[in-house]
C-alpha cells in the first residue's frame, strides 16, 4: 500500500538513495545530492551501482562517447569548484578546424584559451594503459566517494516497490531498501526495463545509431597533423550530418553523427579526400584502428521519467541533440538532486521542479533539429558552403571584429550554447547581411571565375 502523505516523500536524516549507473549523470546527481544535503545539515547515504570497471581499456570500461567536455560545462564545473585533473584531460582544445570540400579554416576559441577538454570515459581504447591518462567517469566517481558515496560494483537485476520504499536486488542476490532510486543507465535497454515496474508511465527515449572509432598514433604525429584543434567536417555525404576528429594523447577519436550510420557510411567518410589528407599519407587507417562501435544516441527525450521515489537522469531522461551529452547529464543530474533534497521525492515534486528542466532541453532540441536541417542544406550546396567559408575566413582575419558566423559555428559544433541562443544569433541581421553578401560574392566567383 503506497503512502501518499507528502511528509513521507521528503528526504531526512538517515534517508538512503540508490543510483543505478556510475556514469556522469549518476555521479553528478550523487555529488550534488550529498553537497546540498550537507548544506542543510542533513545526513543521507548514497549507494552507486556500477558493474563496469572504468579502469579497463576498450569496451569493458568504455561508455561509448565522443569524449568532449564542453566550454559551458567546464566553466560551470570550475565555478562549482570542480577542476578536472590533468590526468583526465587528454588534450585541451583551443580551436576547431572546419573542413569542407571547398577548403578549411581554423576558428579560434574565444579569449584564446583552452576551454574544451578532450577525454575518455574509460581509460581509453583497446591498447591504452593507465600511463595514457585516467578515466573521466572514474574521476567523477572518485569525487562522489570523497563526498561520502558508496560505490557497489554490481549490476542491479530488479526493483520492487514496497510500502516504505523501493527494494533493489543485485546479480549476487543481495537486497537493499532505498527511499529514492535514481536511474542513470544511459540508453541501456535492459537496465531501462528495470524501471518498468517502479515507474510504469515511463516512456524511454527515442534513439538513432552513431559511429565512433579510434586511431592510434604517436603523440608527435598527432601534434603535427591535428594540433590542439577539433577537426569538424561538413561534407556532402549521405546520412552524415556532422563528423569530427578529436585529438587525445595517443589517440584520435572519430565521431559521426547522422541517421542510422552503418559500416559503409562510416567508410565513405573515412576515405573521403578531406578526411584522408589530414592523416600521414603512408598510414593505413584500418591498421591503426583499435576500436570502433555504433552506439545509440538520444534523439527524443523520455516521457514521465519520474514517479514517487524514482527519477531518471541523463540520457535515460533527456539529452542535448547530437552534442554535449555530458553537459545534459550535469543539468539533469543536478536538477534531480536539487529537487530531491529541497523539494522532496514524490512524483508531484519531480513534475513541478525536475520535469521543466527536461522540457527545456527538449524544447531546445526542436530548435537544434531546425539548426541541423539548415546545416544540412548548407552541407549539400557548393554555393552556400563557399559563402560560409569565405565569411569565416574573413572574420578570422580581423582580430578585433565581432566574429558572428564563427561564434555561431563554434557553438553549434562544440555544443557550448543552447540551440535557442545559437538560433537567435544566426537570425541577427548583422550576421545575415554579411552572409547574404558573401553568397552574392561566391555566386559571382562561381559564374565568372569558375571557383
Amino acid at each position, binding site marked *: 500500500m503506497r503512502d501518499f502523505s507528502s511528509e513521507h516523500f521528503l528526504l531526512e536524516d538517515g534517508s538512503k538513495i540508490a543510483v543505478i549507473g556510475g556514469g556522469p549523470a549518476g555521479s553528478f546527481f550523487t555529488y550534488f545530492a550529498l553537497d546540498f544535503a550537507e548544506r542543510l545539515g542533513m545526513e543521507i547515504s548514497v549507494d552507486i551501482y556500477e558493474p563496469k570497471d572504468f579502469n579497463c581499456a576498450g569496451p569493458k570500461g568504455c561508455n561509448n562517447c565522443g569524449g568532449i567536455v564542453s566550454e559551458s560545462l567546464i566553466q560551470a564545473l*570550475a565555478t562549482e569548484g570542480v*577542476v578536472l585533473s590533468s590526468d583526465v584531460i587528454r*588534450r*585541451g582544445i583551443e580551436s576547431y578546424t572546419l573542413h569542407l570540400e571547398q577548403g578549411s579554416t581554423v576558428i579560434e576559441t574565444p579569449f*584564446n584559451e*583552452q*576551454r574544451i*577538454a578532450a577525454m575518455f570515459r574509460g581509460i581509453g581504447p583497446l591498447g591504452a594503459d593507465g600511463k595514457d591518462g585516467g578515466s573521466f567517469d572514474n574521476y567523477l566517481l572518485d569525487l562522489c566517494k570523497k563526498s561520502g558515496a558508496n560505490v557497489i560494483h554490481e549490476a542491479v537485476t530488479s526493483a520492487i516497490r514496497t510500502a516504505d520504499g523501493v527494494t533493489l536486488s543485485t546479480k549476487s542476490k543481495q537486497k537493499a531498501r532505498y527511499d529514492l532510486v535514481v536511474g542513470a543507465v544511459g540508453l541501456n535497454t535492459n537496465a531501462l526495463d528495470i524501471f518498468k515496474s517502479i515507474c510504469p508511465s515511463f516512456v524511454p527515449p527515442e534513439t538513432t545509431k552513431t559511429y565512433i572509432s579510434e586511431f592510434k598514433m604517436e603523440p608527435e604525429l598527432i601534434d603535427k597533423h591535428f594540433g590542439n584543434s577539433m577537426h569538424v567536417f561538413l561534407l556532402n555525404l549521405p546520412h552524415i550530418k556532422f563528423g569530427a576528429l578529436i585529438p587525445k594523447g595517443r589517440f584520435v577519436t572519430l565521431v559521426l553523427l547522422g541517421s542510422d550510420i552503418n559500416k559503409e557510411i562510416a567508410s565513405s567518410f573515412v576515405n573521403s579526400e578531406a578526411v584522408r589528407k589530414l592523416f600521414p599519407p603512408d598510414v593505413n587507417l584500418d591498421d591503426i584502428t583499435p576500436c570502433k562501435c555504433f552506439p545509440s544516441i538520444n534523439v527524443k527525450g523520455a516521457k514521465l521519467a519520474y514517479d514517487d521515489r524514482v527519477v531518471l537522469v541523463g540520457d535515460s531522461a533527456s539529452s542535448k541533440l547530437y552534442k554535449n551529452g555530458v553537459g545534459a547529464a550535469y543539468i539533469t543530474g543536478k536538477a534531480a538532486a536539487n529537487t530531491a533534497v529541497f523539494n522532496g521525492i514524490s512524483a508531484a515534486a519531480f513534475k513541478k521542479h525536475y520535469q521543466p528542466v527536461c522540457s527545456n532541453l527538449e524544447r531546445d532540441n526542436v530548435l537544434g533539429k531546425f539548426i541541423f536541417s539548415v546545416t544540412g542544406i548548407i552541407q549539400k550546396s557548393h554555393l552556400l558552403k563557399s559563402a560560409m567559408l569565405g565569411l569565416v575566413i574573413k572574420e578570422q582575419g580581423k582580430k578585433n571584429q565581432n566574429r558572428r558566423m564563427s561564434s555561431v559555428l563554434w557553438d553549434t559544433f562544440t555544443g557550448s550554447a543552447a540551440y535557442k541562443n545559437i538560433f537567435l544569433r544566426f537570425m541577427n541581421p548583422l550576421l545575415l547581411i554579411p552572409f547574404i553578401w558573401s553568397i552574392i560574392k561566391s555566386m559571382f566567383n562561381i559564374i565568372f571565375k569558375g571557383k
Partner: protein
Amino acid sequence: MRNNKLGRLYRDGEIVIKKGDEGTCLFVIQEGRVEVFDEKGDSEIKIAELGASEFFGEMGLFEKDVRSCTVRAQGNAKILTIDKKNFYKTIQKDPTLAYKLLQKMSFRLRELNKKVLQS
C-alpha cells in the same frame, strides 16, 4: 607544461589582472600558482598566494568597481576565465551555482577579520 590543462598559459611574472583595470571576469586556477598583491608607493604588499582550483577576481562579477589588487603568475600558471555575461546567464537558470563562490567569499571575509583582529 603539457597541453592537458585548460585555460590560458601565463608565464612566470606575467600580470593576470592589474589593479585599477575594469573587472569583467572571474578566474579559476587550473594549474600553478599566483600571487595577489597591492602597491603602496614603490613597494608591494603581498595579500595572498593562490593555487590550483582556487579563484580570484570575483569582486569584478558583483561590483562595477575596478580591480582592487594586482595578480601575477608565480611560475607558469594555467588559468581559466569565466566571463561575467556567461556567469550571470547560467546563474539565472541555476542559482545554486553561486554556493561555492559565496562559501569562498565568506571564508575570505572570515580570514580577513582574523587578520584585522591580529594586527
